[in-house]
């Protein structure tokens, strides 16, 4: 018998500090598989956020630099402009990319910065204990929406992928999930396509990944993985949202 599944090379052999069933570790692994397959481990520079994944550099065996909350897209812009040969990716949560970092994200996309954003959407602020996020769904109870998110007071969950797809500098946007074997395989494909579009110099790419958060959703892991299918992906539909990577850069 031959070993057909093992630990990716660009994933360090460290014990993950994430909760049982958390999507982060799956996403770290498939991103590292993509980095291995594309052969970019020695060119990649990652920008993790404050949040549960603040210690991403303990796991990704690539150069990484911490960012202030929300500023990942600006930090990535600085890195890429200083060294266009590097493959720069941000790894951002829903507060980081869709609340405090919206401006930086929108404008990096608008400038067509040749960077890849991995956007982890778990509909809640995880590390700080489960507060409402821009992507929290209506009626969802969180520690700062204890009576359930009310559209009149808190607005609706925001669809960043659809918004960023409107911006001309964005070449590839897809929403995926990591809550089933099939979805994990599709998520990996999307990440590969995003990184490839950066290698090809096509502009800003974004993969939004619906990620289970059992602890803050107050469910067990299996329930949380099912909830992504049953509830979350009804609000945030999975699928390709934009792909202009075939277009010539004629603008």
């Amino acid at each position: 018998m031959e070993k057909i599944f093992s630990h990716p090379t660009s994933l360090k052999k460290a014990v993950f500090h994430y909760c049982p069933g958390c999507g982060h570790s799956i996403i770290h692994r498939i991103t590292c598989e993509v980095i291995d397959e594309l052969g970019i481990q020695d060119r990649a520079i990652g920008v993790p956020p404050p949040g549960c994944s603040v210690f991403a550099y303990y796991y990704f065996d690539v150069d990484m630099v911490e960012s202030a909350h929300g500023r990942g897209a600006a930090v990535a812009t600085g890195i890429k402009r200083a060294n266009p040969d590097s493959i720069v990716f941000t790894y951002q949560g829903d507060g980081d990319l869709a609340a405090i970092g919206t401006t930086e994200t929108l404008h990096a996309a608008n400038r067509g910065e040749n960077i890849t954003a991995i956007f982890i959407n778990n509909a809640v602020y995880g590390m700080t204990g489960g507060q409402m996020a821009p992507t929290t769904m209506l009626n969802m109870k969180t520690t700062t929406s204890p009576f359930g998110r009310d559209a009149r007071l808190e607005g609706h969950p925001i669809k960043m992928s659809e918004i960023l797809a409107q911006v001309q500098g964005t070449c590839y946007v897809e929403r995926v999930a990591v809550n089933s074997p099939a979805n994990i395989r599709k998520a990996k494909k999307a990440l590969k396509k995003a990184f490839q579009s950066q290698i090809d110099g096509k502009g800003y790419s974004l993969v939004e990944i619906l990620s289970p958060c059992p602890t803050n959703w107050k469910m067990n892991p299996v329930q949380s993985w099912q909830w992504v299918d049953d509830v979350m992906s009804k609000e945030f539909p999975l699928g390709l949202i934009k792909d202009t990577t075939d277009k010539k850069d004629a603008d």
Partner: protein
Amino acid sequence: MAKVLMTGNAAIGEAAIRAGCQSYFGYPITPQNELTEYMAAHLSRRPGCSFVQAESEIAAINMVYGASVAGVRAMTSSSSPGISLKQEGISYLAACQLPAVIVNMSRGGPGLGSISASQSDYFQSTRGGGHGDYRTIVLGPASVQELADLTHHAFELTDKYFIPVIILGDGMLGQMMEPLEFKHEAPDVPPVRQDALRGAKGRPSKFVRTFTSHPPDLEEVNWSLFRRYQLLQKQEVMWENYMTEDARLIVTAFGIAARIAKGAIKQARAMGLKIGMFRPITLWPFPSEQLKELAKTTKYFLDFEMNMGQMIEDVRLSLEGQGDISFHGRPGGVIPTPSEVLRIITRIYHQKGLN
């Protein structure tokens, strides 16, 4: 090298390019727009260089952070309210020990304030400015020539000590036009630091971070910064003694205020008054020893600033209870004239019975 006539803002830009600045990130704000525009015109098309008008001052400082991590000389500029926005980013630069040059052409404050020159960001600049226990090097130029020279010096200092450097100018210095000489030529290829994160080729991967879940590690980072600050205090202070040898009254002033005061002192000297000036050029590290030295021969000091009294605290700390210190200040962007300062220093001279 021939002398050229330039505005302060443009001189900073040209000096930065000649110092090997590879990346500039800025945002429009009066009274420093000419610097951002100079970089747009002159840096953006240089081979291997990069100019971005960022979406905000916050984005700009974070772009500087990214470029610095990638090993290039990076600069941003703004004026007072925009510098407030940058404080988080500067704290991160200090914590990660990354080089960067930040130019503040300060204006009247607080709030949206006024667009006129002021010196009310002294505290903000010299006391860290953002959260956490850190300092940045602060340089206080007082002429267009000095803006150029200190810009070059800023890049050298920040790359040597891995501490961010703030050039604390003001709206008047930025707008005034004077002849100056550039002492350096721009490099063909901007320099890249050895410690840069440019991909882990042929070496283990590295990470740059400030956060730790183990406070003793952070304590050690703080103490290592502290030791570097002590070294800076010993090695890098800059100051000017102007006619202090026989002075009975010494004016302490920095930047544009020192420029104005010099005009007043020249007139006072012509009238036979023995007045001099102590001008810190590094506002941090502050030339405390050098100021304290003057207290051996002079008892009376007048601190003159375009604010409500900020550098005067460092003057008092330096003199350690010695000396009789008066203060004259004009906040809000009001620019005092040399004759106003002459009136003040003459009055104090006579009030204190000096001759």
